[in-house]
């Protein structure tokens, strides 16, 4: 038994050609990773030292403190409100933007600017957008909502446009051939083809906004994030754990709800 691949019969091309470019790229990536780690002082001793510190930190978190429950509920409620409002407005904005960005239904002078707008919405992480809005409109939930709306449009509109670009144009053609107006074609031939996927994107975005809404507060955008950040700064690590557990619970519930919605719209 030989593990060396059989040499191809004379006169035949090698059926499994080797790509030296790909091998060189993998090797290059491996070398760079080691080099970057050496630059950034990523060492085993440093890691072990960090572990000890982490153990002390976890020790101070336990047991979780249920002292400031009013703060917790208020923060959670605000995060939930931020997430839901941002998702609703994000979806409403994404529908026309995504439709405008679809290259198979729209002329290039419509789709190009729409795609540029989507790319702009996607350029920055929600934290950076949240900081911008906090500076622009001041501290509080409104900044967080605006930041997450931008993130939602960047995500949903892009995927929605892609879903529209993958539809069967035969179905569209048939409906157009009946003399249907453009909007009727959209409602009866395009929407049925993308509705299930769109519902999937929207519920995923709600899920994502729930998580992000707990974070925008750290930069002043309202919600449980600000409560969390304050607790960190006051070294109330036991209360921090309570907040973290509450966030996990919310994400779980959101996940279950999203799955249920997706199933309903299949």
């Amino acid at each position, binding site marked *: 038994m030989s593990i060396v691949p059989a040499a191809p019969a004379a006169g035949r091309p090698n059926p499994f050609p080797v790509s030296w470019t790909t091998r060189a790229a993998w090797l290059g990536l491996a070398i760079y990773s080691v080099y970057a780690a050496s630059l950034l002082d990523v060492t085993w001793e440093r890691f072990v030292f960090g572990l000890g510190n982490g153990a002390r930190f976890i020790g101070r978190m336990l047991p979780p403190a249920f002292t400031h429950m009013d703060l917790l509920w208020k923060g959670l409620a605000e995060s939930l409100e931020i997430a839901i409002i941002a998702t609703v407005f994000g979806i409403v904005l994404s529908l026309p933007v995504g439709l405008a960005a679809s290259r198979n239904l729209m002329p290039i002078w419509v789709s190009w600017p729409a795609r540029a707008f989507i790319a702009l919405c996607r350029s920055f992480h929600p934290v950076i957008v949240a900081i911008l809005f906090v500076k622009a409109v001041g501290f509080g939930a409104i900044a967080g909502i605006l930041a997450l709306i931008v993130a939602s449009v960047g995500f949903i509109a892009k995927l929605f446009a892609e879903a529209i670009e993958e539809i069967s144009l035969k179905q569209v053609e*048939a409906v*157009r051939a*009946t003399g249907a107006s453009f909007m009727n074609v959209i409602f*009866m031939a395009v929407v*049925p083809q993308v509705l299930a996927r769109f519902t999937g994107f929207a519920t995923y975005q709600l899920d994502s906004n729930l998580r992000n809404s707990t974070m925008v507060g750290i930069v002043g955008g309202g919600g449980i994030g600000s409560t969390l950040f304050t607790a960190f700064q006051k070294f109330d690590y036991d209360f921090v754990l309570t907040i973290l557990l509450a966030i996990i619970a919310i994400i779980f519930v959101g996940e279950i709800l999203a799955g249920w919605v997706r199933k309903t719209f299949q």
Partner: protein
Amino acid sequence: MTAIGAMTGAAANGSGQAGMTGTRSLSIRGLTKEYVRGKPVLRGISLDIAGQGITAIIGPSGTGKSTLIRCINRLVEPTAGEIWFQGMDLARLRGRSLREARRRIGMVFQEYNLVERLSVMENLLCGRLGYISPVRAWLRRFDPADIERAFELLDIVGLGAFATQRADALSGGQRQRVGIARAVMQRPDLLLADEPTSSLDPKTSVEIMELMAGLTAQHDIPVILNIHNVELAKRFAARIVGMAGGHVVFDGLPADLRDDHLKQIYGGEGWLE
């Protein structure tokens, strides 16, 4: 504008009545289509189609049969030429007047082209989309008379029990029945059929042709039919148009179509055994 309005009214009143066939004839003059500049698929086609009966267009694949049919309802833009129907040159219509012309021209497709995720009933009512606003379409507020007619048509095509099933649950033959019913829902003055049986087995093909021929004869709708199957063409059509290389090379009664013509249309002769 008033002339178009009057025409529309006349066509609507006359639908289904014999004696109105004059308004249902089609006249094609010098129709040319080039997908690529300098390489015409249709080379100056001129045809007069009477306002009744089935006209079958036969010819090899890639000879422009489908392009010809799609130029009529402008799913394909003609490069040059005129298509006269009910006093209008279809080749020049734009916007609303094009949509109003399309409302009166039904089309049946090779691959049925049903909206897969809509129900059978919704697919039939797509045939009425030229007449209702987007809001009503969205809310499915179709005219009750149209809904009643859709139920009747479903019974006629033998799918009465399938009204609320999704189109993607149907077999090929059933889908084409829905496709035909959708076209007839338009109360068309002309029916275009682009290879309606090419995706179906021989028995189903005959059934579909019988259904289409029967329904259109009953409502006196002229049919322009692209079809590969010469036997089916001869059996159902009143007139056969043979195309080759973007030209009409035969135009006559099915009985007059000889093997010599088929050689001229399809080329070669070994396949004619």
